[in-house]
């Protein structure tokens, strides 16, 4: 494959250096562009899965709830060497489309080329991947195509694809003739499988990649080629792009409760125990999400918890034990339901609660802990800077002057809290914050507010004593030192979002992304009276 090596393959570099023509230096890893990916994709390089073919029974039994779809696909793909119309397999995410197709081809044991539009994220990489898989199969690569990147354009790709496919088909025919009846007949068809087709739409608005791929069958006009598309968006999403040359559609509906039960019961060492576990957890979780991937992530720690009181994991639970296990799990269940998909914090719960096994109070005590303390460290000046960013994001810029007097201190506003007008304004203000999100502000405003609140903090000691008796220690803050450094680290931590420059002023604008709860926590940790600085209070 010496010729192939000359084609630069590292995908990241390729898109950016499309104008640059010098071929990059070949390295051994470059030969197989997808060797780091999942096993199934790697195996497809030789056009077959190298795994042993499976029987129809195993195929169907390994996909609970998918029997009608699998049989339908098998019917439409047809018998050996039978031409086919293009198929479009669609259904929501995590409904087993890709794995079902790959296993179907393992069962059929026919040559195919798999190209996922998620991993091959640009037309060039996609074309490259398809041709490479075909040429590796055809054993004698076409002369002259290597080294020069000739299939940058769709027309060249189609030409080369046609040549490669004809070569591949001829090779298959030859082998079938030679081997006669000795080997299993794998047919003379080559199937092209395009996965994640929904992503094609977002690739390049100007390119014709969607109609090109969806009409590839019509353009090639080779009856020995079967095309299968896999998409998570419905066929109508492509109507605008393609016209009437639609593929035949097969719909993978989302799993029902029974299907999910069947899926989670597969390969369980103690099916009775797991079944009783599922009878507890599956229904409540099913109301939140129907995706297998998310459910399995949520169930794993819960099952650990469920099994904890058990000495023997292979025990067959009776009714009393089931109830006991359920009582044990119940508090964790509600916490987990509301923290679905946040795995790390769940594990921290576990470690915290390791000691006491009290049923009640798990969620409550945790809430209390988290609401009062910050679970990370930040320097004093970073906290002030973050708070001033929060204030700048929350308050309208026009009100700065009324909030801070010339000396930087807080003006004591006298407000009539009960008047209808201020109530109305408060409502509309809250509404606006809900709708618009945090406002953006220029650096100058942030620094000005920062100046104000730090100068207040320094002189606060005396004021605080008159006002409510709680005093903060008079530290000599080096608050204004390296503010910009702090700002950039806050940006890196994603507490402050640096957005593009304002079209009118031309300067970079910032936005504070933390929510109020967090801001209050930060303010508490430095005894800063945040609420008196916020406009709507």
């Amino acid at each position, binding site marked *: 494959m010496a010729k192939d090596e000359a084609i630069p393959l590292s995908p990241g570099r390729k898109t950016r250096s499309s104008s640059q023509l010098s071929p990059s230096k070949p390295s051994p890893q470059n030969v197989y562009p997808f060797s780091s990916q999942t096993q199934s994709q790697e195996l497809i390089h030789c056009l077959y899965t190298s795994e042993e073919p499976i029987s129809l029974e195993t195929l169907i039994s390994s996909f609970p709830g998918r029997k009608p779809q699998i049989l339908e696909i098998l019917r439409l793909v047809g*018998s050996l060497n039978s*031409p*086919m119309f293009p198929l479009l397999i669609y259904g929501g995410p995590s409904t087993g489309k890709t794995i079902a197709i790959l296993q179907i081809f393992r069962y059929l044991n026919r040559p195919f080329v798999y190209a996922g539009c998620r991993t091959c994220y640009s037309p060039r990489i996609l074309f490259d991947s398809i041709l490479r898989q075909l040429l590796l199969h055809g054993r004698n690569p076409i002369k002259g195509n290597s080294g020069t990147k000739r299939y940058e354009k769709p027309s060249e790709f189609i030409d080369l694809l046609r040549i490669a496919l004809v070569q591949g088909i001829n090779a298959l025919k030859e082998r079938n003739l030679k081997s006669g009846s000795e080997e299993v007949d794998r047919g003379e068809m080559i199937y092209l499988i395009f996965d994640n087709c929904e992503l094609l739409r977002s690739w390049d608005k100007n390119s014709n990649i969607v109609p090109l791929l969806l009409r590839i069958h019509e353009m090639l006009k080779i009856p020995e080629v079967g095309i299968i598309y896999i998409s998570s*968006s*419905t066929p*109508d999403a492509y109507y605008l792009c393609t016209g009437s040359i*639609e593929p035949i559609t097969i719909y993978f509906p*989302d799993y029902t409760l029974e299907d999910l039960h069947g899926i989670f019961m597969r390969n369980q060492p103690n099916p009775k125990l797991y079944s009783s576990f599922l009878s507890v957890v599956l229904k409540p979780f099913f109301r939140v999400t129907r995706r297998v991937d998310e459910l399995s992530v949520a169930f794993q720690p819960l099952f650990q918890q469920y099994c904890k009181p058990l000495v023997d994991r292979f025990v067959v639970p009776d009714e009393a034990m089931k109830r006991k296990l359920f009582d044990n799990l119940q508090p964790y269940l509600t916490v987990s339901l509301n923290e679905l998909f946040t795995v790390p914090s769940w594990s921290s719960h576990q470690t915290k609660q390791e000691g006491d096994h009290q049923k009640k109070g798990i969620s409550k005590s945790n809430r209390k802990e988290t609401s009062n303390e910050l679970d990370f460290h930040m320097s004093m000046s970073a906290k002030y800077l973050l708070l001033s960013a929060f204030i700048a994001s929350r308050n309208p810029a026009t009100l700065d002057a009324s909030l801070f007097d010339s000396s930087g201190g807080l003006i004591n506003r006298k407000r009539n809290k009960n008047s209808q007008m201020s109530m109305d304004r408060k409502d509309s203000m809250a509404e606006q914050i809900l709708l618009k999100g945090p406002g953006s502000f220029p650096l100058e405003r942030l620094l000005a507010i920062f100046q104000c609140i730090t100068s207040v903090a320094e002189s606060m000691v005396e004021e605080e004593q008159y006002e409510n008796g709680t005093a903060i220690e008079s530290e000599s803050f080096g608050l204004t030192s390296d503010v910009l450094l702090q700002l950039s680290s806050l940006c890196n931590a994603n507490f402050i979002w640096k957005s593009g420059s304002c079209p009118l002023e031309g300067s970079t604008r910032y936005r504070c992304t933390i929510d109020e709860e967090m801001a209050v926590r930060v303010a508490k940790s430095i005894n800063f009276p945040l609420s008196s600085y916020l406009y709507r209070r």
Partner: protein
Amino acid sequence: MASEKALDCLRRRLCDSSFVYSAFKSTPAGNYSKLKFLISNTITEACNNSVLLLGPRGCGKGAVVDMILEELKDEFPEIISVVRLNGLLHSDDNFAVKGKQRLLYSLLDAMQTLTSQSVVIGISCRLNILGDKKFKEILDVLSSVDNTISNICRFLYHAISWMHFESGSLTLDGFKNALSCMQRQPMLDKLQGASVLEFYILVCMNRLGSREQNSFNFNSIMKEYKAIQDAYKTSDNYSWSVCLRAFEHLIERELISFLDNRMRSLSIEYRPVRLLLSSQELHQGLKSNSFCPVSNINY
């Protein structure tokens, strides 16, 4: 097995466009005969000509041209050569000076010179191409009769795939299935797959929309959701982050979408969204969803 062979034969015929469209050959006054006469005339008289075929997609424009060219290649061996240009493939700057239109015009201009002899056959499904005056002057229009032969082919292909092998007969189930596959309503399919919480969010959005609130985002949806939970005291009161995840699922399912793609810098909960389905569709989806209690809520 004989029935398998029969099925294979049927599939081959349906997939072969020259077989499917060969029916056109037999009608003497049809477009097939007209076009063939026109082209062969041009070849025998050694002049230039151009034709534009118009018609909806999948009515066999390309197939007819292919069949004619195959026949003419036999009739006039070594005289004609075929150059195929495809708008999808050859609209690049390198192929024509500026896009498709220019390519066509330069082709047509080249025909004015006497040194070359050619027939240009254009195929398009866009009837609005006729608005172009220049085309009107020079092109002979053939309107196509048949509508969607390729649709019928796909329907038959789907139906015969259900052939019963033992008896070798086609089944009624097959035809029913093929029909239902063609009449699928994708929005309802998508809606069927939604979880209860996702339905709640859709209902909240529908309520906001029906109150003529012109713009809403996840935060205002959450406010509505909380209001529903307070009013009806359901068991489906989930936390903010769980709802946000369900919200993301809905975006992934393309049941809702962001109003504006430019506001990427805002975090997801502030970006305004819109419902991609009508309230009738939502109502239908709720009714057909047996496990969903949301339908009890007056929305």
